[in-house]
């Protein structure tokens, strides 16, 4: 039983071990890829100086607010278009049109508009998270089982109580899929935006380190992005577990 729990860790540990080993005996040049111990030392030093925490904190804030703004607008528009045919015919085709523009293609114009200030990152992250949440909210509400709505009608539910007790919970699994997807996009957008146009954050830390050939800090930044991405995915999963307890997938 214990062995089974160790199983997923074997491959990463072996990889890390051989990485360290091959670096130490000189098979991997430190100028190509710094070894794990060096990266760890760099992390410790940057933490001591306070720079690491500051950069991680600013990146996390950007991710959070961009997600809240973009996801919030996406959710509201998804609700409106899902619930009202009029809103759908008014807005949906325009939104679908804009969706075809890759949001990262807007970076040049975003820099012209906002420079490399916070607005630029906020705008890009918000734009990136808007679409998955919009689409999944819209789709979730549209695919609510009509027979459940009919049943609820027979039992006297309409208006707000119909929405809160039937439509929203039925759409929630789909909305949460959108949330997880959007969280992934949040970090991808932020990596690009901070690398190209920023004077703080993890991406800036990486680009700065590149200037001084601090390869260990560059790799550290990549690992930090990976960890933060994983962390938000775990959070999303916990939210799913909490709110979809009723779902057969989550029944023990």
């Amino acid at each position, binding site marked *: 039983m214990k062995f089974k729990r160790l199983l997923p860790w074997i491959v990463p540990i072996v990889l890390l071990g051989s990485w360290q080993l091959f670096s130490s005996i000189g098979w991997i040049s430190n100028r190509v890829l710094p070894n794990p111990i060096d990266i760890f030392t760099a992390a410790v030093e940057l933490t001591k100086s306070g720079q690491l925490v500051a950069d991680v904190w600013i990146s996390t804030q950007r991710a959070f607010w961009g997600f809240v703004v973009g996801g919030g607008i996406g959710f509201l528009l998804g609700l409106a278009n899902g619930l009202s045919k009029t809103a759908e015919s008014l807005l949906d085709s325009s939104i679908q049109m804009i969706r075809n523009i890759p949001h990262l293609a807007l970076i040049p114009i975003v820099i012209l508009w906002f420079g490399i200030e916070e607005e630029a990152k906020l705008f890009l992250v918000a734009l990136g998270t808007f679409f998955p949440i919009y689409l999944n909210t819209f789709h979730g509400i549209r695919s609510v089982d009509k027979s459940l709505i009919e*049943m609820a009608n*027979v*039992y006297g*539910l309409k208006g707000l*109580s119909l929405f809160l*007790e039937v439509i929203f*919970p*039925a759409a929630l699994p789909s909305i949460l899929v959108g949330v997880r997807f959007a969280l992934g996009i949040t970090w991808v957008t932020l990596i690009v935006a901070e690398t190209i146009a920023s004077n703080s954050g993890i991406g800036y830390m990486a680009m700065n380190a590149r200037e001084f050939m601090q390869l260990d800090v560059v790799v550290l930044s990549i690992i930090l992005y990976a960890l933060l991405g994983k962390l938000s995915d775990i959070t999303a999963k916990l939210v799913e577990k909490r709110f979809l307890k*009723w779902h057969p997938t989550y*029944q023990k």
Partner: protein
Amino acid sequence: MTKDHKNEPILQLDNIVKSFDGKEVLKKIDLHVNKGDFIAVVGKSGCGKSTLLRIIAGLEEISSGSLLVDGTELKGRNQLAKMMFQDGRLLPWKKVSDNVGLGLKSEEKKQIPTILKQVGLAERANVWPAVLSGGQKQRVALARALIHDPELLLLDEPLGALDALTRMEMHELIEDLWKEKQFTAILVTHDVEEAVALANRVILIEEGEIVMDLPVHLPYPRQRDNPLFSSLVSQILNRIMGKKRKVEANLTTLAKTSTSASVRRA
């Protein structure tokens, strides 16, 4: 069925026609239902029996004809009626007791434990519908309908998906609750034996028309080995099959349901 309000009509359907896209699903239905009756509507699938029930519930509009509920023309939903659907239609994100309490005011929700006890699910009030068996789900659906104390209970093949033993338990339960609460029941089913076991009047619909209207005067609870019972069943089956087949006809309804034999009583 000795009731003082016997022969008072709760439903009067006259000349009801219902068509979908120009195709007549119900052609000239005349049906008067008295208070306290237990009516079973049988027929092959696609004969229009479910449509008839949905019309009575106010879920479908009639194309022409008149439908009086307790003497007044039905507009919109039938407020006297609660419906039990074939697939249960429980809300999976609500615990059993919240499903039963759907659409109730908070003081009315005090009835939930009582009604759950009546359907034999007192112990399961706090579980998700996903963990219930098919029979238990339909018990919850029955409780959800009965907590409103409806004058008219509409049952749209509610037992069609259950195994034979669970179905017999449900027959007993429905019969007991009907006797106790004295509502009027209309049961749509394709199971002729079920119809004869429960109803005091069996109606056969074929291609949108009532072709048979048969009173059942057997005492409750009904013994299926009673020769009168079997002869009624085969009389209806013969009419459905359109040929003179004898008593062995009812064996088909028995055979098709005996696959699963687990008795689940909560």
